[in-house]
């Protein structure tokens, strides 16, 4: 029995040492500052305590779906042309980017067109139509839409991550947010000046080079008229500031090929520079594959015009002087900031779709510091009040409860250190609540012991019965609180999650301290007592 007790005490001391290590690690010294530094290295502070920015973006995944079907439309056209088949591929409605139509198929060729479409696209698209009206409809399968959406969100997270890293923010968080709504969460500790950061993060920077069909024109009508009254589906009208070419301030209109010759993902690198006339430019290098494609195109189209589009607007129009393979420079109407951002963006890759800001929270460092101070004050006052109360109300056993309470806090904080959990302000509130709820278990046990003593039991029997009877109640009460904390963790966000984490850890630790540790302390005490003596409770 005594040997068993020694083992239990050894276990408790081991747990204490392990979790103190969890809180502080191995500190560089024992001075207050060294301990504080060791502590902050182990337990991360949430944004609400250290200050920083918390941003939520919606990834406009329909753009990625749209891009995908655009490519397929171009492919179908090429295939129809190569096979000498009639029909025109187009996207009937910009609101449903996942739908492609092939129209004007002659009845004689309907079956060949069908088998061609079926052959190549039936994995990803549902093919319908092909009746008397000569129209086929390809609708992207929902599963494939979902695949593209997920891929897009992942790419967006990677790209935003690269951009955040290029800013040198320490310990940023970039992750999917919400429950499958294609949102991403960006947390930047220590950043409170957001304006530049945000434009860098969410700038699509879809840099594209398109072949110019005609332009510049002064208005959309002029552009339409010059093209014979209507724009074919494979072409589009784009605008750019007039001074690019004419030097005037009014907008200019261009008609360009819808499909880009070179687009975002084709760029390998880009750097700001200055051309021979002293104008700012961006020097870019293309990937090998894109370089071949670009060489192909430029060598066939010497003398024709190309338009450089960024964010859907024309930034430069230039004539092709000679074939270009994989490097070139863009001289456009760029401000120095734009050149910097553009080159940074091109280096980190383009976003696969635009990001729309949904939420933006910034906590200043001074508020964070205040919150820490207030939270810690409330915690210390709470602990002291509870401990003093236990000492007064339960006398000798109060010491037992207070020891268990301290160990409970050590385990909770140590656990957070080991799990590198984030401590938020509601998390501190969770610690405070743990104190209040943790000591409940002691009360349940002690009250039961008192009751057993009143019923005339001996000290050791009363302790025994007290623990046995209270145990089930304690488990019940812990389960209900942990269930609601778990639901809070699943549904909650940011700081609230921190609360759920500390409350759960704290209550789990409490099962060990209030039941096991407290029992061992009682046993050790009972061993030393003379027969017939009562416990102080």
């Amino acid at each position: 029995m005594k040997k068993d007790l020694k083992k239990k005490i050894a276990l408790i001391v081991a747990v204490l040492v392990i979790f103190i290590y969890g809180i502080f690690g191995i500190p560089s010294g024992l001075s207050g500052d060294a301990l504080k530094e060791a502590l902050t290295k182990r337990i991360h502070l949430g944004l609400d305590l250290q200050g920083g920015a918390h941003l939520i973006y919606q990834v406009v995944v329909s753009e990625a779906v749209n891009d995908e079907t655009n490519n397929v439309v171009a492919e179908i056209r090429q295939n129809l042309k190569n096979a000498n088949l009639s029909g025109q591929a187009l996207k009937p409605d910009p609101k449903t980017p996942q739908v492609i139509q092939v129209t004007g198929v002659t009845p004689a060729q309907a079956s060949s067109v069908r088998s061609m479409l079926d052959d190549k696209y039936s994995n990803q698209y549902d093919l319908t139509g092909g009746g008397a009206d000569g129209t086929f409809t390809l609708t992207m399968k929902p599963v494939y839409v979902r695949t593209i959406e997920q891929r897009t969100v992942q790419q967006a997270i990677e790209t935003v991550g690269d951009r955040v890293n290029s800013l040198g923010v320490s310990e940023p968080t970039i992750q999917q947010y919400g429950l499958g709504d294609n949102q991403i969460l960006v947390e930047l500790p220590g950043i409170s000046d957001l304006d530049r950061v945000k434009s860098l993060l969410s700038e699509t920077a879809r840099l594209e080079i398109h072949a110019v069909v005609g332009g510049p024109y002064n208005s959309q009508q002029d552009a339409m008229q010059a093209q014979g009254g209507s724009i074919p589906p494979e072409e589009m009208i784009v605008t750019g500031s007039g001074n690019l070419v004419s030097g005037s301030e009014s907008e200019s209109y261009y008609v360009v090929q819808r499909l880009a010759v070179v687009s975002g993902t084709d760029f390998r690198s880009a750097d700001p520079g200055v051309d021979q006339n002293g104008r700012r430019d961006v020097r870019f290098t293309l990937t090998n594959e894109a370089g071949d494609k670009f060489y192909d195109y430029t060598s066939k189209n010497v003398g024709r015009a190309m338009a450089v589009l960024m964010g859907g607007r024309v930034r430069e129009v230039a004539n092709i002087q000679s074939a270009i393979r994989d490097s070139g420079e863009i001289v456009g109407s760029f401000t120095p900031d734009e050149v910097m951002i553009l080159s940074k963006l091109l280096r980190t890759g383009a976003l696969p779709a635009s990001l729309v800001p949904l939420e933006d929270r910034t906590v200043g460092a001074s508020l964070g510091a205040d919150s820490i101070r207030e939270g810690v004050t409330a915690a210390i006052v709470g602990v002291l009040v509870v401990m003093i109360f236990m000492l007064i109300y339960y006398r000798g056993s109060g010491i037992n409860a207070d020891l268990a309470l301290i160990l409970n806090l050590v385990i909770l904080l140590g656990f957070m250190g080991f799990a590198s959990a984030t401590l938020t302000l509601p998390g501190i509130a969770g610690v405070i609540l743990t104190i209040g709820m943790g000591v409940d278990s002691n009360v349940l046990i002690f009250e039961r012991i008192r009751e057993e003593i009143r019923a005339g039991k001996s000290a050791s029997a009363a302790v025994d019965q007290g623990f046995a009877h209270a145990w089930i109640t304690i488990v019940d009460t812990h389960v209900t609180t942990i269930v609601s904390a778990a639901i809070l963790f699943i549904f909650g966000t940011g700081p609230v999650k921190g609360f759920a984490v500390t409350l759960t850890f704290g209550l789990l630790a409490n099962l060990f301290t209030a039941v096991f540790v407290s029992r061992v302390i009682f046993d050790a005490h009972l061993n030393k007592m003379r027969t017939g003596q009562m416990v102080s409770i």
Partner: protein
Amino acid sequence: MEFFRSPNVDWLGWKWYFLAFSLIFSVAGVTSMVWHWEHPVGGLRSPVPLGVDFRGGTQVEVQFPGPPDITRIRQATVAAGIRDANIVNYSVPGRYEVLISLPEEHQESSLDLGRQQIESALSAQFGSAFDPRRDIRNVAVVGPTVGRQLEKQAGLATLYSMAGMLVYLWFRFQLIYGVAAVVACFHDTLITVGFFALTGQEISLTVIAAILTLVGYSMNDTIVVFDRIRENLRLNRKETLPDVVNRSINQTLSRTVLTSGLTFLTVLSLYLFGGRVLHGFSFALVVGILIGTYSSIAIASPMLVAWQQWRVSRGKTAPLPAAKRARV
């Protein structure tokens, strides 16, 4: 030291007073919720005042070196063309803070506009005395999508939480015990939320966290009493149910009051010293713990008795099931 030595109170004799007390608070809360529903703020109907987390919009917290001049701040915002700005002075001696809120921005692409407008308005009015990087302590800009998502999630979380409790108590005791506990819990939640409506305090995300915690915590006292009822039912089968329930409440009264009292003390410390950010959170806990303790004695246990009496009146004399044998 002991507060209660073998109390002998006829709790069930008080049940009509308890019912009246609960009804007064519930009706007051619900009436206030209806009033809020009928007086929407910024075109947003809601039974309780919503914080920026749910309502959406822009909220900027600014600190000033001295007592802030609200009139000048209002002039500044009006001059900058900001309509419907809500300016609240939170100053206490030694710390001067103003909270400027703008209603929900419908254009999500210009989500950030409100913050920039407020910043430039204050810069224009106060010149170099205002430094955005130093004096802006907290900014929250929430678009309508996020607010609605959160609202839905908060409601779902509360429902799931209560359902979880019901299932657990059903499994550990009997269905009727679970129903009684969940009704008491719903009563606690209703009155706590009602207090927010009555006092006009905003419900934020952390308040929801507090309410969810209460759903779990207010079960604790109820479970302690139920545990004892079950134990006494097994020990003494001759006693009538009202007597068993009364005796069980009396036997556990000391621990019910102590456990809640101690948790209440820590929560009170949080309310008094925890700062303004956690104010709503600790307020919900302060109110909720008081109501939760009251309801485990005044609502949950009388419900068990009422249920049995109803069954007897229907001619089914089966006593309240003592539930599964506890694994003691």
